[in-house]
């Protein structure tokens, strides 16, 4: 019984999911479980990215964390969207990731970023009914910015950081020296890296989809 055709199964057990996935239907429990499974995989990818960016770039390595995560998790995201194909799927994925980041001790701002960007990504993908390749790629790029939350404090909490440095009796000239490499330049470098890596990662994901999943009837 368990060996049924893969794309017939998730719609069967629920009443709400009987309408074909046109991007208008509500998320059913089966969809939520699918999202959960892919979110877990995405989270594993984020952990791998954290490890990689810490190894390659040392102490301040986390500025490239979202870029590396975007580079490697294109497949996971593309398959999730193909399997769900309804409005809300991308949003829920972002919210759950934000929740796990918050509970594991990341800064609260990360939660805001991981709600706002996935909602925009969801809206973009919805225009193409979760089928249009180019729009999905754009949507993936936007979604990738949702992970900037954990690193945003580097720039936006600068005042608090400077204040606590001054409280410890450091002089202004030296503080300026410290911030020579955490400025707008690195901000745009990091954001640009996300853009490039997300495009490559998304393209790789779509290639993998064509190569493996569409043929197997999974996507």
């Amino acid at each position: 019984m368990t060996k049924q055709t893969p794309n017939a199964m998730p719609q069967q057990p629920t009443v709400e999911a009987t309408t074909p996935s046109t991007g208008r239907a509500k998320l059913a429990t089966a969809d939520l479980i699918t999202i959960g499974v892919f979110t877990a995989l995405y989270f594993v990818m984020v952990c791998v990215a954290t490890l990689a960016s810490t190894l390659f770039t040392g102490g301040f390595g986390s500025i490239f964390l979202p870029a590396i995560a975007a580079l490697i998790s294109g497949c996971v995201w593309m398959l999730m969207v193909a399997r769900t194909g309804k409005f809300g799927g991308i949003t829920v994925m972002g919210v759950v990731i934000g929740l796990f980041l918050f509970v594991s001790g990341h800064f609260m701002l990360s939660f805001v970023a991981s709600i706002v960007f996935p909602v925009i990504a969801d809206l973009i993908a919805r225009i193409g009914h979760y089928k249009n390749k180019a729009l999905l790629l754009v949507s993936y790029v936007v979604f990738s910015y949702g992970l900037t939350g954990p690193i945003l404090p580097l720039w936006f909490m600068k005042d608090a950081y400077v204040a606590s440095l001054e409280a410890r009796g450091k002089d202004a000239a030296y503080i300026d020296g410290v911030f020579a490499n955490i400025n707008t330049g690195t901000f745009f470098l990091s954001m640009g890296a996300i853009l490039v890596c997300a495009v490559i990662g998304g393209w790789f994901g779509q290639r993998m989809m064509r190569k493996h999943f569409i043929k197997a009837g999974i996507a």
Partner: protein
Amino acid sequence: MNSVCGRIRNLDPRTKLVLLILANLMLFFHVAVSTQAVMVVLFLLPLVAAGRWRMALKFAVVYAVLTALGFLDPEFLGMPWLHVVSALAVGANMMLPCFITGAYAFSTTSPSAFICAMRRIHMPEAVVIPCVVVIRFFPTVAQDYRQIRAAMALRGIASGGWGMLRHPAQSLEYILIPLLMNATNVAQDLSVAALTKGLGRAGAHTSRTRIHMTPIDWLTIVVCTVPLALDIAGVI
């Protein structure tokens, strides 16, 4: 019996959430060093109470070392490069309360208590169900990964320490695609199992795990809020 014991030594998940928010607020408001030290000690106490004294000790040592580094005067020692280390230490020190409360919340909350708490604070089911699945699915990923690596080694693909790094795109494809294939299957199995157990039903769901706000929880919240409130009000 077990749950009664656990309730005394472990805080309610909602209290842990409050502690997490307090630790985050410490970042927003520029707290003084003394307040920070008091808060860190307060955050470490629940860890000790939960029996994670080794973890608490590690955090305490890290905090002490980082604080000491933050107060170093490199000019006096004649080693200007220490400025960078010192500034990094101050930055890490600011993040540490968040990490302590995060580690506490993560290591002492059972999945069922976490889920029960999420339902109690009226989190929508659309968020609760994926969270349940994420927690349930992590061990599966680890197991699948080991099996995939074993199968790759058998075929002589990317074996050895540096084998995976030599062809990163290929390694990513060979590891991720089987993981995703399996993930889609597990998603279907889980859907069937969960729907059989009534996860898709509307209305309130019951739970075997009971969570309770005890006087100790309220006391913890009040005691941890006081130093922060005093600091923001400018008393300390």
